């Protein structure tokens, strides 16, 4: 596939990409034409009528009906074409095909959670290729916006109702998936990937993804990884490296030893104890099951120096 200015010219990764990029190139050519007229026109006019010596009286021409009609009507015709084309593409982006696979999306500060029809969940959007996928999205807190640049799709994710978008990956591979509505401290970390797999590999992945996810998967799925590093670097929240067994100083000056019960409380009621130097911004995790909680705490315990 050939890329220029970020838009594909040949070979698309999805049908929506092709629709949008064709329109993009049409508008680009129209724009380049007018830009050339304006810039070239200015350069020629300045070169031709450059002042030499003192100015005398100049032409009083201030109208040319034919010219004015041309430069009013021509842009109108072009924008009407662009409008209809743009609207047509927009409707195709808005209306998902009937055979779409439906995946529910929960957005929150600051991670994405994808829920599949079979009840399994994932922190990455794993999809089969050549299959339209419809996302039904809602937010648990503020407004987010789900954006997959390679597929040219984006839709705000609202806290008080569902919004939807659809796409289809025609090529297996990894694609960026990110939040584009500013949502606070972790906005630029609210990132995950679309992983498009061939059909058989996708089915294999689905079987493996049943039941309780492993600790590392949960750590990503519940968005812990957005704010808590595993390598000792402080992020929006404290690092997990060497956390278990450590003594933390809290915002009110008291100290607490990090044990299983402290971790449990901090996951279920994040605002109960705030470590000094950090903001009370962690969201509660009401969806977490007790099996998952055990697996997650075991994973955090295993992050030793």
């Amino acid at each position, binding site marked *: 596939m050939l890329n220029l200015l970020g838009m594909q010219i040949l070979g698309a990764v999805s049908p929506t990409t092709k629709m*949008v990029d064709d329109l993009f190139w049409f508008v680009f050519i129209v724009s380049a034409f007018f830009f050339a007229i304006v810039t070239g026109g200015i350069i020629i006019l300045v070169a031709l009528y450059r002042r030499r010596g003192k*100015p005398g009286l100049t032409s*009083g021409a201030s109208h040319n009906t034919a010219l004015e009609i041309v430069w*009013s009507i021509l842009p109108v015709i072009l*924008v009407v074409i662009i409008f209809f084309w743009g609207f047509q593409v927009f409707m195709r982006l808005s209306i998902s095909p009937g055979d779409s696979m439906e995946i529910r999306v929960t957005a929150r500060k600051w991670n994405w959670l994808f829920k599949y029809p079979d009840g399994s969940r994932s922190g990455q959007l794993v999809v089969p290729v050549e299959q339209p996928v419809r996302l039904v999205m809602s937010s648990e807190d503020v407004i987010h916006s789900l954006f997959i640049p390679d597929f040219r799709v984006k839709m705000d994710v*609202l806290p008080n109702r569902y919004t939807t978008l659809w796409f289809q990956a025609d090529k297996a591979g990894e694609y960026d998936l990110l939040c584009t509505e*500013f949502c*606070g*401290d972790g906005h*630029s970390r609210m990132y995950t990937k679309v992983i498009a797999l061939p059909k058989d590999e996708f089915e294999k992945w689905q079987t493996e993804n049943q039941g309780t996810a492993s600790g590392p998967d949960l750590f990503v799925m519940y968005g812990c990884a957005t704010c808590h590093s595993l390598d000792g670097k402080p992020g929006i929240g404290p690092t997990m490296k060497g956390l278990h067994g450590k003594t933390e100083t809290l915002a009110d000056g008291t100290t607490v030893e990090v044990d299983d019960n402290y971790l449990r409380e901090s996951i279920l009621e994040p605002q109960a104890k705030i470590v000094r130097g950090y903001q009370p911004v962690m969201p509660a995790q009401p969806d977490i099951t007790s099996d998952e909680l055990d697996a997650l705490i075991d994973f955090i315990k295993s992050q030793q120096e």
Partner: protein
Amino acid sequence: MEAAPRLNYITQRKGILSWLFTLDHKRIALMYLFMIMIFFLAGGLYALLLRLELWAPGEQFIGQRAYNQAFTMHGAIMIFLFIIPSIPAVLGNFLLPIMLGTKDVAFPRLNLASWYVYMFGAIFCLWSLVQGGADTGWTFYTPYSTQHSETPVISITFGAFILGFSSIFTGLNFIVTIHKMRAPGMTWFKMPLFCWGMYATALIQILATPVLGITLMLLILEKLGIIVVFDPTRGGDPVLFQHFFWFYSHPAVYIMILPGMAIISELIAVHAHKKIFGYKLIAFSSVAIALLGFLVWGHHMFVSGQSPYAAMVFSFLSFYIGVPSGIKVFNWMATLYKGSISLTVPMLYALAFLILFTIGGLTGIFLGALGIDVQMHDTYFVVAHFHYVMMGGTVFAFFGGIHHWWPKMFGRLYNRTAATFAFVLLFVGFNLTFFTQFIMGAKGMPRRYWDYSDFLNEKTYHMYHGFSSIGAMILGLGFFVMGIYLVHSLFRGQRCGSNPWGGLSLEWATTSPPPTENFEHPPRLTHGPYDYDKVLPENI
């Protein structure tokens, strides 16, 4: 060169109190100029900080929250404290009465009050700034701003609320002045086009600003726990805020760009020494843009979950606002035809405006097309687009106007070589900073991102961000040079006569700087502002 006139509006009275209690529109304009330049510097320093942070992926200088606060303060300061008041309150205030041939604006006390209200609003914004600044973006979207942000949101929104009144006062003053105070013989169509631009701007200021005031007040009351309008957990609708906000803030785009267009009409006619092409079309298109501007706010919300049919209507109407803007550009180009073009510093800014505004306008076509906007919304493509319109358009026009009327305001000329050099730096720096952003935006680089190290395209983004940051440094250097030669000219600049450019509108008929009452004798209108085919200006 002739000696400085006996007494002018600057030398007539001395002392700080003579400024703070002045009712002279020219002095109030200079007080505005002083303040907005301070805020332009502050907003610009924030911009440099942002560009430094984005120089490379990962954390460079500031953390994530500090970055969020920095881009919020950059936007809020530049929009509410710099661009919106810049042209109307400085150049409009200074020039409108002189161009109309009158002594002052209709309500001089209201004019002074608007400056004090501006200062009062600015204090609240500064209060937010010294606490680190809000982190909501200048758009204050709910429910993040009301329910989630832990930064000083109330002080900055209250500041913007107060600043709105200052804007309304100025608009009101201009409308009444234009209706009632024109010199004998100055009919509507003999006014310089600058006055038409100010008139169209004033209409929007009066009609749209109250909506912003109401919206921000609702936000503050909700944040104080008094009412619930936007909070989704208690039955409110956060998207309603976006409708309210853009109902003001889209027309506000025209509060910002129409004055820029108003300046360009003057600059091109004077420095091309040519009758303006299509006077009435330029005048009416300003008013048309002002009115149409109220019907397109939904194009900021194509992916907000609004009905696709609402999006359709907003997209359709948005395209029609592009047409009068395009017509203006063609009219300005046609004015150059058979003119006598002098590449003075103001003319360079005017020509740069034509090119940059054209890019800004054409990229608006991309964003107006629904299918493309889905991709571009909230990416750097949008950031680049509005900087081409707001900075390449309005700010270039503003500095073009400053360079054009500087001799009138202070009676002195700046160093032309230094000014041309600074212009080249600004033009190159601007395009390097923002053209790169179109490309990374189209690729999918989202705006308001502190870091881009997660992306698969990290290396490409790094390259574009790097160029953009270099461009920003060149821009900063350009403004630094401009500051030096402008301040230098105030004390050492060559004195100039009343009409250094050979203009025909009334401000060139009085001395530089003008006397307090603007004209020694009430001016008689002997020719139109653009009659370069009939009259040869004196003293060029």
